[in-house]
């Protein structure tokens, strides 16, 4: 966990006072909605179909138990008793009243939580691998650098009014859990041939209306140059990014139109002019940030404790352990993913009671720390393997031990037309129906790793382009229709999926996904050939044939 210093605390508290005054002036009529809109958006407040929506930042997806308890309090006190974890590691409340928002922000500020960088054309909250700091084989904890970027980017005057929003993601593992290739800037910590640690910098990735996979602009950037180099990128974008057309304003369009070589040349020129500036990081600065992260005092524990041997006789526990428990960098410990994807439930939602219970379990079993993944699940990153059986029983009791991580029912979905004013079609009911169709865990395990992503509109909050199966809601003559893509992926081999054919009506979607899955089972070369690999090998034609031949 990172401990905020006095500067951070002052900034957050001042922000609450400022917003309280702005809300007061809005409600009195002193500010018009046109004047107020950008101010509320800077504090994560959107207006959705039924109510205001409040998006709260969880920088690099790391939360303390105390912070999660406060999020439960917000849900209970100011909303309708639940929150929605998003694909950007934030939490959203859907029913909050504008008049009560300053109080909610003040309650969050007491535990170092805020809503800055969750909206607007600024650098957004930095996201990271949810296993950061605990994943085996990781180069180093990328959150140190994510925190540096957070401090650098928060309320940055030069980059608070960019042509469009700007998103960073960072990982330090070979396997990319942070989807860095579909962010404006993706950062991958790695070691070069000399054994030095630095960043591969990717730029121009993104989803939405025009999806692009990020391109490598720098193979190896020493850590000391991180801030100056990303500032050079941001300056080039700020200067040349389009402001005349919202659909062409993201950096991905600029990179695509200039070409990566020309864009890189512009960045290099800008960077060379900056020289050794105040942005060059020295070891002391990095160490200062590092020193404010606290790490668990791990014990020396056995890999296979008696408790685990005993529990292995319980098939339900074993199914969950195989699915939801991952190896930890420290022997005797494990990383546990908590599924927020119950069969028939809305993906990513957690009730206030669940949040409180998870916070208690984090205190008891995970050194008080929780992570949020972009897949809309939570993680307890530091669980002693001897505690896994007891933890599983407790998680099962509160409904977050569905053994479906990375399986067909672990669906990523945006709020869709049930909540969102931008949406064309519903996402959540489609997800719910699919989880019912594939509720049998044996079937889901037989299918294997399969990511289904659903977006209710082209803005792609559900990352449908990079779902192994992507479902995009569109509107046709007032009816909900859905386009289906297959073969996308968001990891280190990220690729945009391919459309299989014309859009289909709401009632047909679940049947079609079942057909696609059945086709895959019949077509795969062997049981361990993943869905995406079968699509890569065969293309979309056999799936298209299966879906449209009889429709």
């Amino acid at each position: 966990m990172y401990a905020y210093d006095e500067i951070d605390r002052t900034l957050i508290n001042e922000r609450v006072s400022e917003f309280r005054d702005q809300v007061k002036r809005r409600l009195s009529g002193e500010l018009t909605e046109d004047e107020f809109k950008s101010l509320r958006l800077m504090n994560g407040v959107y207006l959705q179909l039924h109510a205001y929506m409040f998006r709260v930042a969880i920088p690099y997806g790391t939360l303390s138990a105390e912070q999660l308890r406060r999020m439960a309090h917000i849900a209970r006190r100011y909303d309708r008793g639940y929150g929605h974890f998003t694909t950007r590691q934030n939490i959203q409340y859907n029913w909050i009243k504008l008049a009560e928002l300053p109080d909610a922000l003040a309650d969050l500020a007491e535990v170092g939580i805020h809503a800055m960088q969750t909206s607007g054309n600024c650098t957004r909250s930095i996201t990271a691998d949810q296993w950061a700091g605990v994943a085996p084989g990781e180069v180093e904890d990328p959150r140190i650098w994510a925190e540096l970027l957070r401090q650098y980017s928060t309320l940055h005057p030069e980059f608070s009014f960019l042509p469009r929003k700007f998103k960073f993601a960072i990982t330090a593992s070979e396997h990319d859990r942070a989807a860095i290739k579909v962010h404006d800037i993706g950062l991958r910590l790695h070691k070069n041939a000399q054994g030095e640690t630095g960043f591969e910098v990717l730029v121009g990735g993104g989803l939405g209306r025009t999806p692009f996979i990020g391109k490598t602009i720098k193979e190896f950037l020493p850590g000391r140059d991180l801030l100056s180099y990303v500032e050079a990128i941001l300056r080039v974008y700020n200067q040349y990014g389009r402001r005349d057309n919202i659909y062409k304003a993201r950096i991905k369009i600029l990179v695509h139109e200039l070409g990566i070589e020309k864009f890189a040349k512009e960045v290099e020129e800008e960077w060379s002019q900056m020289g050794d500036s105040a942005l060059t990081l020295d070891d002391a600065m990095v160490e200062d940030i590092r020193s404010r992260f606290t790490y668990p005092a791990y014990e020396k524990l056995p890999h296979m404790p008696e408790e685990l041997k005993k529990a292995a006789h319980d098939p339900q526990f074993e199914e969950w352990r195989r699915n939801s428990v991952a190896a930890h960098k420290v022997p005797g410990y494990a990383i546990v993913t908590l599924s927020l994807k119950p069969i028939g439930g809305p993906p990513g939602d957690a009730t206030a009671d669940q949040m409180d219970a998870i916070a208690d379990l984090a205190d008891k079993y995970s050194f008080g720390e929780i992570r949020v993944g972009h897949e809309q699940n939570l993680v307890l990153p530091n669980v002693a393997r001897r505690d896994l059986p007891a933890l599983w029983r407790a998680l099962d009791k509160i409904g977050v031990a569905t053994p479906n991580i990375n399986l067909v029912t672990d669906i990523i979905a945006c709020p869709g037309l049930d909540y969102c004013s931008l949406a064309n079609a519903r996402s959540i009911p489609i997800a719910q129906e699919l989880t019912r169709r594939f509720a049998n865990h044996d079937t889901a395990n037989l299918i294997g790793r399969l990511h289904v992503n659903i977006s209710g509109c082209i803005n792609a909050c559900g990352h449908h382009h990079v779902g192994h199966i992507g479902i995009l809601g569109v509107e046709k003559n007032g009816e909900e229709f859905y386009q289906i893509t297959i073969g996308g992926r968001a990891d280190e081999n990220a690729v945009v999926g391919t459309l299989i054919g014309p859009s289909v009506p709401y009632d047909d979607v679940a049947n079609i996904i079942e057909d696609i899955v059945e086709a895959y089972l019949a077509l795969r070369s062997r049981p361990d050939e993943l869905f995406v690999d079968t699509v890569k090998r065969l293309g979309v034609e056999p799936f298209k044939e299966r879906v449209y031949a009889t429709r």
Partner: protein
Amino acid sequence: MTSPLQQKIKITGPSMITANRTWDGVVIYRTAHKGWSTELSEAAIVTTVDEARALLAEAVADDVGAVGAYIARVELADNGEIEPGNLREHIRSEGVTIDLPVSA
């Protein structure tokens, strides 16, 4: 931001003016009595561009009470009951189409 009054108004049938209430965001409908109601059944119905423009102008003028006023199509049942004209307005009027998560 372009005012809704500066946008081209097109009416394809009976319509109403809807918005969200400023202090809490709740869905509201402009009534025939220069006020707002949370009940669709109390919405003023307009059928011509001129009527729609006049009612929208009145709604937009209440910037303190309402946010984002716009014209939306409705259906009128045989008994005169007002029904939302599309799925979006149906969801705004009736609420989400899913069960909200509840603590056990």
